[in-house]
């Protein structure tokens, strides 16, 4: 059974150009949900973004749950429940249905983060059991 835990971060919605020019703390992981929306996981709490974000929406985000998987776990537990092709480049964000649940995958070269919105956590873990 996958143990999904809250993955805290900061979520920002701003125009695409502002996000392109965004400066984030060293080591932060930036998941680009859409051209005008990002989710940023910081290596340490407290280091957040501020530049170029006039009238942006910036919010602390604790609404995502997830877990890190090894590549073996990813292949064995998750990929069989995906009806679309994973991107080949790394790192990469992939978003879509996993076992019928809206989910996101952050793919790094040696591991992957499986994420979903908290209300889906129960269904996702049940279905990937």
């Amino acid at each position, binding site marked *: 059974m996958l143990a999904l835990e809250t993955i805290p971060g900061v979520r920002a919605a701003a125009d695409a150009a502002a996000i392109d020019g965004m400066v984030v703390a060293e080591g932060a992981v930036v998941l680009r949900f859409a051209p005008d929306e990002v989710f940023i996981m910081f290596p340490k709490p407290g280091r957040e973004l501020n530049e170029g974000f006039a009238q942006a929406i910036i919010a602390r985000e604790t609404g995502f749950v997830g877990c890190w998987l090894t590549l073996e776990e990813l292949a064995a537990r998750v990929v069989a429940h995906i009806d679309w092709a994973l991107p080949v480049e790394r790192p990469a964000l992939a*978003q879509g*249905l996993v076992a019928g649940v809206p989910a996101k995958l952050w793919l790094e070269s040696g591991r992957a983060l499986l994420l979903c919105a908290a209300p889906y956590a129960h269904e996702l873990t049940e279905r990937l059991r």
Partner: protein
Amino acid sequence: MPELDCPNCGLRPIEEFTFGGERPSVPDRITDPLERDVDYAWMHDNVNGATSERWFHAAGCRRWLTVRRNTSLTGMTPVE
């Protein structure tokens, strides 16, 4: 399997998307403003052929895309 190519997420099965319909258009020959409003509110072109529609990638980036599609064909094959 019918798929749509989301500009943010790539090729995805149709179940990930919500159909948003085509942008309504009212034929020029309808001139009466009230009739035009009824047509805009209720009527559909229901084209058998190339059409332009809105789809929302509900299970992915949650953004809209505009799709050119031939409704005479099976699946979601885009048309140029």
